């Protein structure tokens, strides 16, 4: 069975006719005639999902309209305003994404100042490319692609030709978890918690102080870990998007993410466990 998405206004919708659909690409059985099962509508958004059945009633495909997340809708509004030359829309985008762009750029250039320059250059590239942005990726992914490209170019000029995927640097070494937390090999409890983690108070997790701590800790991570955790956890990109943007394998992406998250967790633990909020 094929499952898929089409973006409202995207390619596939043009191939769908109201009652019966002949769409060889949708079903393995060549030129199968598919019926469309009760599509339902969402006001103002057209069709939301289509279920295709082959003759014999086997479900061949479920094609859903990609749900536009709230953020995406908001971004679409910003894009329209930006294209019409609205300065406020531009500054909203800058405020929203600049910090992440700097964190990402830092993986390719030597200094924070250089990363800030890269982000500035990237914003100019965004303005110059905005007419060409087609919405095939989210605006966020597109922004990050521009920043990665600018940062790579800048890094190359600085003579930092180390590819992102070269993992074995001093920076990225180190165990994700402190071995002292576990019983050592001489113990009959080897590998089990010697000092187990204590649960965190929910209240403390939503405190601004805690959020600032995480922000600061992400800032202290080795550059590549910082880029990955920024894209994945701060900005919520998918793993495959991050691999694609940074040119790393899935495994390396996971290793970097694991170390980054483990480090941030450890910092949170230090703050949150010794008697509530120390």
């Amino acid at each position, binding site marked *: 069975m094929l499952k898929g998405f089409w973006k409202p206004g995207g390619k596939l919708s043009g191939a769908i006719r109201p009652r019966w659909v002949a769409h060889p690409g949708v079903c393995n059985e060549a030129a199968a005639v598919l019926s469309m099962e009760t599509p339902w509508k969402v006001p103002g958004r057209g069709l939301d999902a289509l279920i295709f059945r082959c003759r014999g009633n086997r479900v061949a495909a479920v094609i859903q309209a990609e749900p536009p997340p709230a953020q995406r809708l908001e971004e679409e509004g910003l894009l329209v305003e930006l294209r019409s*030359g609205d*300065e406020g829309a*531009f*500054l909203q985008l*800058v*405020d*929203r994404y*600049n*910090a992440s762009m700097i964190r990402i750029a830092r993986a390719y250039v030597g200094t924070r100042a250089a990363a*800030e320059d890269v982000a*500035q250059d990237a*914003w*100019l590239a965004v*303005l*110059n490319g905005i007419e060409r942005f087609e919405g095939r990726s989210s605006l966020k992914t597109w922004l990050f692609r521009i920043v990665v490209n600018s940062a790579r170019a800048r890094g190359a000029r600085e003579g930092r030709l180390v590819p992102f995927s070269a993992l074995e640097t001093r920076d990225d070494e180190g165990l*994700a*978890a402190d*071995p002292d937390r*576990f019983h050592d090999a001489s113990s009959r409890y*080897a*590998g*089990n*918690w010697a000092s*187990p*983690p*204590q*649960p*965190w108070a929910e209240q403390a*997790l*939503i405190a*601004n102080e*805690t*959020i*600032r701590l*995480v*922000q600061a800790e*992400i800032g202290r991570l080795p550059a590549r870990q910082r880029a990955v*955790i920024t894209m994945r*956890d*701060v900005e*919520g990109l998918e*793993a495959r998007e991050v691999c694609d943007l940074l040119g790393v394998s*899935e495994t390396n992406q*996971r290793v970097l*993410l*694991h170390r980054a*998250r*483990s480090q*941030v*967790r450890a910092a*949170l*633990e230090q703050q949150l466990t010794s008697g509530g909020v120390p």
Partner: protein
Amino acid sequence: MTASSTLDLSCQELVAAVTDYLEGSLPLLERTRFETHLCYCPPCRVYLAQMEETVAVAGRLTVEALPAEGRDRLVAAFRGWNRALPGRKP
């Protein structure tokens, strides 16, 4: 070696595999060992919850204000871009 020992995972191993687990990239047997360990190990359940909480807090970072100087440069760049757009009045 008993049959149960092949399922045994130490806490330290679980901690090392926690991201692979959350990413859904553990093979079935490994995932089963992971989840079996969670069943009888409250501290590891705490650890897993903390990793998830860490991800959640990272998703709530606040907007960091851009330093005025950088902001001014961007505003200037924006205005230059805006004037150069076709159909704009100079």
